[in-house]
């Protein structure tokens, strides 16, 4: 097997950059939207069951079906790929943010109130830090989802590492398939590992128990 040939002929260095760029944009958007939605639902808990039910249904939609359904709206390429990644990733982040904010132990809140913190300060200085480990766990799930969707983006001309995988399958070229497939897999494991480390750090720093 000629790894170098595959790497150069398929432009894997550039494909990897494209892949990580889409991944980065999608994940950043998901974190911002997810955390904000979680905060919003914390303020309006009555809406929470409806919002989570809708997101749960979206979550079951087959990835490729969602991608192709976004085509008429957003065209081919990066945009629908990023949009689909965000749609799948909002749920774990928003749900964990919401759960994290609402499940803070009463005694902490009471102490915070007793020393004279306002509602807003309780939220930002007590609830939010204590929710961080759970939020990070949600982000870690989103990392895995986003990696999967971005890889599929190759099928709708978004570039990234899905593109050479598609080429490999169409040419029935085992070298391209194995090298690119294993490389995407390794990349996914590395990113998941990094997310796990961050989650563990936050759990040690702010964890309960």
């Amino acid at each position, binding site marked *: 097997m000629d790894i170098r040939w595959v790497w150069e002929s398929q432009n894997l260095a550039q494909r990897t950059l494209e892949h990580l760029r889409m991944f980065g944009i999608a994940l950043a958007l998901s974190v911002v939207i997810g955390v904000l939605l979680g905060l919003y639902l914390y303020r309006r808990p009555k809406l929470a069951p409806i919002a989570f039910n809708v997101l749960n*249904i979206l979550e079951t*939609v*087959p*990835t490729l*079906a969602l991608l*192709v359904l976004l085509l008429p709206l957003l065209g081919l390429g990066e945009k629908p790929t990023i949009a689909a990644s965000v749609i799948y990733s909002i749920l774990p982040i928003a749900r964990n943010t919401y759960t994290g904010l609402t499940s803070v132990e009463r005694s902490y809140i009471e102490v915070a109130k007793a020393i004279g913190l306002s509602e807003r300060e309780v939220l930002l200085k007590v609830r939010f830090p204590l929710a961080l480990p759970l939020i990070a766990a949600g982000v870690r799930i989103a990392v895995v989802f986003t990696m999967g969707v971005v890889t*599929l983006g190759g099928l709708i001309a978004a570039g990234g590492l899905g593109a050479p995988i598609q080429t490999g399958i169409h040419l029935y070229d085992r070298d391209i398939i194995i090298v690119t497939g294993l490389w*995407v*897999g390794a990349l*996914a494991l590395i990113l998941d590992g990094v997310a796990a480390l961050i989650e563990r750090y936050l759990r040690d720093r702010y964890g309960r128990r």
Partner: protein
Amino acid sequence: MVGVERVLGAFGEHLVLTYASLFLSIAVGIPLAILSLKSKRLASFIMGFANLVQAIPSFAVVAIVVPLLGIGFTPAVFAIFLRALLPIVKNTYVGLSEVDEAMIDAARGIGLTEWEIIRYVRFPHAYPAMFAGIKFAAVLANSIAILTAIIGSGGLGSLVFEGLASFNTDKILAGSIPAILMAVFIDISFSYLEKRVTPEGIGGG
């Protein structure tokens, strides 16, 4: 327009593909979870492996199967099986192993054998977690079964890919809408099944 027969045929293939892989994963996953109860080492190996493989994009798994098994229906079933197996093993094992020790002791006290304890004590308690895993696996299988059309599995995915190649929106819709309805159906039916099977007083709330 896409002919109704074509869509129904593709839907049929999709169902066979999804459920064949799902049943295979259940048939392998549950015994594997029971085996993991017997050995701590096997359990930590399987759980570690499951967590690892779950992070790998489905498209990569589907692609890697091609050099190993070629293209067509069987390799597609194998790829879906690989992805669907993990949530089933993981959730079943967690459900089975998190039963209150006192309850196991009580069961032993009234003379149940190891197997009877698994069958009558551990399993009913594991149902909620197990069904959550199976539901997740079914949704996953339904999703990947579209994707495997790229390695020649047939089914609704082939309509999607044909539509994609020729920019034919009708074909894209004819392939993706039934798959989405299927996903919603799976979600509802498995939730219902879980409620029916779980004995009163266990899990759920």
